[in-house]
Every structure is written in C-alpha cells, then in structure tokens.
C-alpha cells in the first residue's frame, strides 16, 4: 500500500499546500490591517502579485492541459490514419 517514499511525498504535498494557504491568507487578509511601516511588510511582495501569481499559475495549468489534450488527440488521429 503506502510505501515509504510515497508517504513522504504525500505528506510533503499536504505540508506545502498548508504553508501556501497560511502565507497567502496572511498576505491578503491580515496584512492590510497592519501598519504600512511595520517590518513584517518586508517579507511580502507588493499586493498586486497576490492576484498576478495565481492568475499566471492558472493560465499555465490551463495551457498545459490544453497542450496535453491536443497532443493526445493529434496522435490518435495519426494512429488511426496509419492503420487504415
């Protein structure tokens, strides 16, 4: 069942998503209420990136999925042509 490395990778994925979740929450929800001179602002990028990065990531994901599907379908077409 769950072998050692698989379990580590799974835990890693969960940990990574938790870290991203807390960081992003702090960035977007808490930070606007903290004084703009506070040192904590040094640890975060300008807020515009809070929109830009997820948007870019979403586009990349869609692009990747799109390329994958077209690749598979094109390959399929070629295969059926060959067999005919």
């Amino acid at each position, binding site marked *: *069942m769950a072998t050692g490395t698989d379990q580590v990778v799974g835990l890693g994925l969960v940990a990574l998503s938790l870290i991203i979740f807390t960081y992003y929450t702090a960035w977007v929800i808490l930070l606007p209420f903290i004084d703009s001179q506070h040192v904590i602002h040094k640890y975060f990028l300008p807020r515009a990136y809070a929109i830009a990065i997820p948007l870019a990531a979403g586009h990349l994901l869609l692009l990747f999925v799109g390329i994958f*599907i077209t690749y*598979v379908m094109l390959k399929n077409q070629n295969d059926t042509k060959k067999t005919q």
Partner: protein
Amino acid sequence: AAEEASRSSPRFRREPKGRVSRQDKYSVLLPTYNERENLPFIVWLLVKSFSESGFNYEIIIIDDGSPDGTRDVAEQLEKIYGSDRILLRPREKKLGLGTAYIHGMKHATGNYIIIMDADLSHHPKFIPEFIRKQKEGNFDIVSGTRYKGNGGVYGWDLKRKIISRVANFITQILLRPGASDLTGSFRLYRKEVLQKLIGKCISKGYVFQMEMIVRARQLNYTIGEVPISFVDRVYGESKLGGNEIVSFLKGLLTLFATT
C-alpha cells in the same frame, strides 16, 4: 446464517413476502478475457470465501472468446465444482463490459449480483463484508472503495497514484456522487437495480463504472461502501496513458452535462 436472518428480517422491503435472507443468493459475474492463469485461483478463492461464510452463491463466467483457452479452463472448473455453482456462459467475441453484465444477468438466478474483476485485483475475502454491509443498511448498492478506511492500492507507482487521486478529486467536485470510489469495479447490486441501471448507461471503460454510480444517485438508490485493498493485476498489464486520461475527461464532462 440463521442468526443473520433473524436480525435483518424486519426491514426487508423488497423481498417477496418479507421472507428472509436465508433465501438470498449471490451471483458473481466474472467477465474474462485471457485470464487462463488467474481463473482457477479466483474461483477457488470465491468458493472458499463463500463456503466459510455460508452464503448461497453461484459464479457465472462470461468469457469473450479468449484466444488463450480460458474457456477450456472454465469448463474444467465447472466439472470440478459442479454446474450449479459454476456457470459458463461464453460469447463468441469481445463485446465489452456492459453487455457482458447484461448477458451474465440473463442467466443469474440470485437476487443479488456481485461484479468483480477476474484478474485477482479484487480479493473475494471482502465479499462477506459487502453482504454484511448490504444487510446492515438495506442498501441497493454496496461499492468497494480504495479511498476510505483501510482501503488502498498495491502495486501502483507514485505517478499513477497521483493521477488517480486528482481524477477522483475532480470527479467528486463536478458530480457530487455520494460515493468515494467511482472507477472501482468491485460491487454488489440488487439484481433489479443493476438491470435498471445498465439499461441507462452508455459509456465504456473507466467511465462506465462511474456512470453506474451517478445514475444510481439520480434514481435515488442507496449506496453503501466497504474499504477494499486493490492489487494491480499480477499478470498482464494495466494501462494508463494519455488516451485513457483524455477519454476519462470526455466521459466526465459528458456525465457532468447530462446529469
């Protein structure tokens, strides 16, 4: 078995005359294609599991004209275990899983149907748990699940596990099916429920099993779940490539649009 019967008798709504589970009979449908090595073993395990638990059963082997002589093996098994236990109902050529179930069901005398793979990825030791679960909640369908409790998968690499998880996640979000494992094919159905469902399902492959559960949900059938461990096929190769992923997505979207 007598104990079992007295415990579950009061709530038996669809049994004729309200009489009890002693008469329940379980027909196991085993569609095979080139399973010469696996068939004797799976049949032996089934017989062992059923004779230990004491339920009434029959095994229906639906061979789709395997070139490797699966049919001869099945005929020998029929002789060994008796033709009331093992029924051989072959077909001439490979015609697909859905029609194999329809074909097998025509010859089934049990009031419950169990479907499973004959390639040893499903262990018959879980069948008594399926039956117990069914009686417990009087479910119409009991589905084996890899994603709950002690359930799991043996013999898959990390990539395959991740794809499976992602596919399952997307499906859960899009279809809200009310069952945790949709692509599994280790299930117990009431016979009349399976008959009704199969007539409504049009998809093939992975999506077929998924459609069965989704349509069941639509028709308000109740679904119970039992954790199972799935073992990737010992002989032969199970494939998961780009083609499988794309056709899965297509099927998923079709189901999403039509339900």
